[in-house]
């Protein structure tokens, strides 16, 4: 037991991060068909350090310590499985003998750990799975998220998450050989899937952070951590990765200003811009500058530039809506979706709102907005700026009927009560 004053403390999310690292290294050795054994070994590792560190305090290099415990537990698990003859090693591990320990040690350099994580990330983005399920699988396997944490972050119930994980893992097991080859991490096609998954993971976190702080912010940080793995010079589409990182950093810079003391989310207009995180903004610009060296322009580039325009406006009134509208038009070409269109219409409404209501109404036929509160809420906002308060109130009331998430409801109720107060 350490009696000294300077007891080490664990950095935030160290376990979670190391969970992904350990799973990545172990599954490279064991093969993905042994993913259940791998996950058991990792869980076992945490349990044994839990009992010890509670009493002894945290060792100097907890990550290395965890990996060492995992290694010993893995060797024991292999010996056990070998005895029952159920163990067939991965291709990497051509045969299980004394050289196993050496092979293990080679995989423990920072570069190899990074590489193992990258391979696992690409493997988790299984094209056969729905995008949402790819996100769930990645969160579970690579980010160390437990079932309740995923359920909370993805607004699902525990049972549904468990089912998705079990089914997805079965598919992962069939991919035994993939982790052995570097080819998959260099595949142009797969990297686009990986980008999309990280983008979704980020958006999922971004969306739900409206309601609560905490775990859902973590989804955004995890997406950034994984995207950083993709930012190396041999990786395909590196500029796209950098654009993705830029847009992530520029968007999370606003987190400290997004929610007020009452846990209500604030619009861009209501936010105190002095609270925006300057370090994240700088980081965003750093990646943006690198990303624009590219010859091609992707949706991530455009979205990052839009975010940068918001970040560089000293006040809401000074927002460069002309430029932002133009960028949304380009984005519409690259990514034709109702949501992009709605964003473009809203950006244009700050220049002139004479045709905005008609434009929003035209989106009604889009399936994306069926039973969705966004169009009504957007109209409420435009009517309000037009000074048509009765129309605005009824639009917000319509939106409230359709809204599902508590945070969205809270936001709309606030808008409605503001009107009612003004009437009195």
């Amino acid at each position: 037991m350490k009696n000294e004053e300077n007891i080490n403390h664990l950095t935030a999310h160290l376990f979670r991060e190391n969970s992904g690292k350990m799973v990545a290294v172990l599954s490279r050795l064991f093969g993905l068909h042994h993913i259940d054994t791998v996950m058991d070994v990792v869980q076992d590792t945490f349990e044994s350090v839990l009992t010890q560190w509670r009493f002894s305090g945290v060792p100097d290099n907890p990550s290395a310590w965890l990996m060492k415990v995992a290694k010993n537990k893995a060797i024991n698990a292999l010996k056990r499985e070998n005895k029952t003859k159920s163990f067939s090693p991965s291709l990497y591990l051509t045969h299980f003998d004394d050289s196993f320990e050496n092979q293990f040690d080679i995989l423990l350099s920072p570069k190899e750990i990074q590489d193992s994580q990258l391979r696992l990330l690409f493997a988790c983005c299984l094209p056969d799975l729905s995008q949402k399920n790819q996100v769930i699988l990645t969160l579970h396997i690579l980010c160390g998220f437990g079932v309740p944490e995923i359920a909370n972050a993805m607004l699902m119930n525990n049972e549904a998450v468990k089912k998705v994980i079990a089914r997805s893992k079965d598919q992962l097991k069939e991919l035994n050989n993939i982790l052995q080859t570097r080819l998959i991490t260099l595949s142009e096609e797969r990297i686009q899937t990986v980008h999309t998954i990280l983008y979704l993971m980020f958006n999922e976190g971004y969306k739900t952070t409206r309601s609560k702080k905490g775990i859902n912010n973590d989804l955004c940080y995890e997406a950034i951590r994984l995207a950083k793995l993709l930012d190396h010079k041999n990786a395909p589409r590196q500029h796209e990765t950098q654009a993705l990182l830029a847009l992530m950093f520029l968007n999370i810079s606003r987190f400290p200003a997004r929610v007020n003391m009452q846990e209500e989310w604030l619009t861009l207009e209501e936010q105190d811009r002095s609270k925006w995180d300057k370090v994240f903004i700088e980081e965003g610009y750093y990646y943006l500058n690198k990303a624009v060296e590219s010859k091609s322009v992707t949706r991530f580039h455009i979205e990052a530039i839009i975010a940068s325009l918001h970040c560089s406006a000293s006040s809401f009134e000074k927002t460069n809506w002309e430029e932002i509208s133009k960028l949304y038009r380009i984005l519409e070409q690259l990514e034709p979706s109702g949501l992009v269109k709605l964003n473009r219409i809203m950006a244009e409404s700050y220049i002139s709102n004479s045709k905005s209501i008609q434009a929003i109404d035209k989106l009604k036929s889009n399936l994306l907005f069926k039973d969705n509160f966004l169009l009504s809420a957007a109209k409420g906002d435009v009517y309000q700026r037009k000074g048509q308060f009765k129309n605005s109130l009824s639009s917000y009331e319509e939106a409230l009927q359709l809204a599902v998430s508590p945070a969205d409801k809270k936001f709309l109720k606030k808008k409605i009560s503001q009107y009612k107060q003004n009437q009195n």
Partner: protein
Amino acid sequence: MKEFLMLIRENLDNYGKMTPEEMQADIAKHVKWVEQLVKNGNFKGGNPLMPMGKHVKGNNKMVTDGPYIETKEGVSGYYFLLANSLEEAAEIAKGCPSLQIGGTVEIREVIQTQQ
């Protein structure tokens, strides 16, 4: 100051249900608690125990895996606390983070036989 043994009993199966994030939070709480004990001069020592043990019973010295058959509840660790009275020791024990995850603690005064 008198010396007290504090035994922590926990459902040892509980660990398996915790996520990495929860386990990390649990460690942090314990570390903080011990820091506090050290600072206040209430800490003498302590160690965790392996979850598996042997139970030897009776004249025939029957060896089993443990007295607890129905539940996996067992002693997960012990502390030696320093306090002026059993009441004070119990008050200190209330801060043990294991209580937050369903554990129980038992405090017994250590009789000093060698003066």
